[in-house]
């Protein structure tokens, strides 16, 4: 019983979901109330997670659930971004008329699933957390059910994700069969010798996880799903599940299978290179901003995996830094997207950005910062994220990976710069509405501020992340 406070955040979140369901059922027209309550509950949850920050490493439930600096950091990252997702997407949901009580509840349950994934130290716990978060995401993708694109994206995501879950489960069963346990710590002790079965299972699980973070060659679903789902859900997709899946990647590769590093390093390097190159090249021809950000996120995941492939603590830390900064950039980009609104219609084509700077100078500057940061131009935060990754990779003398990464950065810079050219030098179009909510403006200001000012004091983030040591 004494250890129950270690999972207090998860218990609190489960109870919060049930409580909000009751509020939604018994109070008529309580959409707005439930939405605001869930934002507040997220903030309380953040406090509960921060409370566990000082714990070095503790395991509960027969060592199947782990609380350590990595889990605490990733959980707080997820919750903070969930708060910003909530406050920035409210006007969008309202004007699309899809604000129902179930929306925030599904977001909460998906966050619960991610927290379970992040803390998992056991194959079963990990799988259940994954299913919990993806099940909520399927529904969220199809949330605008009267829209054909949204339904299609929900269905597509459901079918492909179920397939990848099947592969993942198959891998889990192989690993269980060959090592005799589902527990990561136990598997680490038994799998020192190279067995085909274990490696086979490992490959299946890597495939399943790569699907979840949309890394090439398991990325096919991402552009369609990103484009079809409501933009608020796309923001959620682009940010939170990737953090959870990347954490599981770290846990999974570095706890049970650290002995097999020679086996999985090659796979990871391949996935990373393929994602970086594909993300850079395929985004060039896009005309829809949401599709563009989908390809961009594929590329960014490639960089995050490059850090993991290095097989050192420094590499892990650089990946964690990368994903944190990536989330800030995603939030800022989507806040800009939410502002492109005219008469209850949201614009998401690249050509709609044309000449934005004449009518909306401040929004254009924010967009400029975000795009420069995504491209990795100093002194913005995106540059430092890539810088840490490449330092970690080069220190392991993986020059090939670093060179390909740098080259694809240059290619990717082309389409980011093209957007900036369209914003600043093309013919202006009609003005967009400017009466945005405080939450949306606040999100944009904070995220852009972080991107601009990160270089002044990078130690703030790095110090927290430097506590994460897996090996």
């Amino acid at each position: 019983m004494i250890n129950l406070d270690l999972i207090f955040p998860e218990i609190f979140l489960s109870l919060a979901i049930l409580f909000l369901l009751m509020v939604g059922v018994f109070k008529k027209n309580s959409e707005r109330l439930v939405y605001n309550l869930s934002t507040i509950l997220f903030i309380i949850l953040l406090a509960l997670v921060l409370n566990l920050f000082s714990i070095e490493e503790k395991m509960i439930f027969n060592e199947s659930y782990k609380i350590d600096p990595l889990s605490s950091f990733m959980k707080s990252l997820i919750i903070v971004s969930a708060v910003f997702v909530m406050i920035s997407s409210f006007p969008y949901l309202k004007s699309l008329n899809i604000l129902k009580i179930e929306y925030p509840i599904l977001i909460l349950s998906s966050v619960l699933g991610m927290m379970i994934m992040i803390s998992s130290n056991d194959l079963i716990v990990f799988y259940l957390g994954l299913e919990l978060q993806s099940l909520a995401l399927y529904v969220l993708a199809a949330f605008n059910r009267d829209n054909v694109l949204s339904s299609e994206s929900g269905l597509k995501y459901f079918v492909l994700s179920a397939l990848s879950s099947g592969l993942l489960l198959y891998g889990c069963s192989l690993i269980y069969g060959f090592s005799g346990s589902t527990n990561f710590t136990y598997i680490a002790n038994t799998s020192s010798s190279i067995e085909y079965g274990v490696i086979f299972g490992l490959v299946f699980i890597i495939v399943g996880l790569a699907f979840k973070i949309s890394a090439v060659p398991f990325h096919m679903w991402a552009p369609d799903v990103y484009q079809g789902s409501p933009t608020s859900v796309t923001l959620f997709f682009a940010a939170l599940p990737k953090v959870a899946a990347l954490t599981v990647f770290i846990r999974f590769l570095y706890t049970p299978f650290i002995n097999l590093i020679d086996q999985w390093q090659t796979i990871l390097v391949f996935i990373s290179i393929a994602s970086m190159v594909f993300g850079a090249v395929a985004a060039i021809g896009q005309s829809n901003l949401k599709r563009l950000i989908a390809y961009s996120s594929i590329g960014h995941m490639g960089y995050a995996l490059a850090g993991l492939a290095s097989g050192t603590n420094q590499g892990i830390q650089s990946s964690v830094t990368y994903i944190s900064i990536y989330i800030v950039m995603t939030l800022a980009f989507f806040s800009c997207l939410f502002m492109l609104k005219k008469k209850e219609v949201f614009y998401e084509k690249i050509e709609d950005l044309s000449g934005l700077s004449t009518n909306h100078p401040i929004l254009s500057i924010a967009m400029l910062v975000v795009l420069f940061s995504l491209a990795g131009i100093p002194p913005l935060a995106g540059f430092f994220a890539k810088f840490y990754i490449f330092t970690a990779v080069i220190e392991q003398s993986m020059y090939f990976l670093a060179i390909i990464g740098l080259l694809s950065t240059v290619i990717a810079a082309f389409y980011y710069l093209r957007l900036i050219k369209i914003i600043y030098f093309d013919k202006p179009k009609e003005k967009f509405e400017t009466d945005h909510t405080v939450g949306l403006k606040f999100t944009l200001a904070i995220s852009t501020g972080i991107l601009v000012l990160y270089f002044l004091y990078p130690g703030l983030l790095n110090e927290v992340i430097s506590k994460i040591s897996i090996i």
Partner: protein
Amino acid sequence: MIAHAVFFYLFAFIAIVSAIMVTAARNTVHSVFFLILDFISISCLFIMIGAEFLGMIMLIVYVGAVAVLFLFVVMMLNVAQQKNQWFASSKSSSHIPAGLLVSLIIFFELIIVIGGWKYKPDLLNSSTILISNTTTNTHSLGNVLYTDYIHLFQISGMILLVAMIGAIVLTFRQRAGLKKQSYIKQISRERADGVEVVNVPKNKGVKIDV
């Protein structure tokens, strides 16, 4: 022992053949029937290795609920007429070679994996899975389900809750202008509310406004 082997190969054969028939059958309803047959023979296999709980659950949940539900859906959506023709048609067969190739590779890899397992004699000794002959399958599941695996049990509950919420969100539509019965209004209605006694003058009639 020989009877055991005979039964095993019988059920395994039925399971594999019906699994193939699920995809190859032309009529979708037949596919579902083969799926049910597949489930039944697999649950027989489970019972044969002593996992009677798993076998029974398989019968109750998959055959009793899931497959019957499939059957209902198939019949209601009227897809039975659609010919399942990925074997027969000549037009849309461009993806079949690639699919076959991938499945062949996976098949051979599996043979390697299972072969490695088969010819590794000390594997069963090194395994930590203890199989006790005294307690039954159901009993030992019950021993751990609510104790060691209580958190997994609870998480599964959350997953089912989310599935329920999701199904409701995606399908429930509030219909406008729906007439509902209100018992209190019906019972508390007095004679005076509904009936009016009018003195009708002769040969004049009475005007009723509806």
